[in-house]
């Protein structure tokens, strides 16, 4: 039995020139989640999960409003911003009316449910099970007077910014 290495790109294909070196695959990503709105929570979580599904090491660092994504009392109630969000198909003045933000958030959650997109809490559980490392920012925790017990149990540790860089050795850093 002979096998060729499947992982290597086609060497016979015309599109691949002979001496062209393949770019290094990404080995590890560090994703900083700094925003607490629903629309800014998902990109970081989906990207971290996508990395793990693709065999890439991932860590997520929750800082500032991003802490809401992993704070027990808030993570199930994240909202879409209806004011100051130019992509919202309603005027800012209308978006500011009482109840608008709650309504838009409910609509978006319903839509995501229909598409079988997991809730924020389930995303955190999936990330933890996938082996992604999840960290909270020390300074933001102090600012918001939070203790580790206030956070989802999947959070591995509370880190300073220097710890963050130490743990990000060799990482691509993505700020959201």
């Amino acid at each position, binding site marked *: *039995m002979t*096998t*060729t290495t*499947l992982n290597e790109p*086609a060497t016979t*294909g015309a599109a691949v020139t002979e001496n062209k070196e393949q770019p290094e695959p990404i080995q590890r990503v560090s994703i900083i989640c700094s925003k607490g709105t629903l629309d800014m929570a998902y990109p970081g979580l*989906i990207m971290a999960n996508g990395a*793990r599904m693709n065999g890439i090491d991932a860590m997520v660092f929750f800082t500032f409003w991003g802490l809401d994504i992993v704070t027990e009392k808030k993570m199930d109630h994240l909202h879409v911003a209806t004011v100051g969000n130019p992509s919202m198909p309603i005027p800012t003045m209308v978006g500011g009316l009482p109840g608008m933000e709650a309504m838009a958030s409910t609509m978006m959650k319903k839509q995501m449910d229909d598409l*079988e997109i997991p809730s924020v809490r389930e995303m955190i559980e999936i990330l933890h*099970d996938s082996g992604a490392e999840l960290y909270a920012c020390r300074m933001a925790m102090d600012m918001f007077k939070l203790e580790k017990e206030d956070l989802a149990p999947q959070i591995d540790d509370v880190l300073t910014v220097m710890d963050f860089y130490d743990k990000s050795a060799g990482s691509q850093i993505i700020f959201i």
Partner: protein
Amino acid sequence: MPAVEFNSLTLEVNEEGFLTDSSQWTPEVAETLAKEVGIDELTEQHWKVITFCREDAAKQGAPPGLRRISKLSGVNMKELYQLFPKGPGKLAAKVSGLPKPQGCI
């Protein structure tokens, strides 16, 4: 197009190593594909995942995403990562002889 030879059979694969003709798949082919992605031996749990993926793809017309596998195959997320450490999202489908899943979850 790259090809991998197996016994007297030549398997057509795309540039990412996925079988281009799912009907060429056999359990022996799965073992060959598994070795290519660093899995030396397919265990009973691997087979549970592979069987689910193939049956689900036949029913749905597309390979299942990882969350779907973890919910319906009887193998949980944590274990899926142990079974396919280099990325269960695509490797479960690859070893099962299916195309790369198109979902993000």
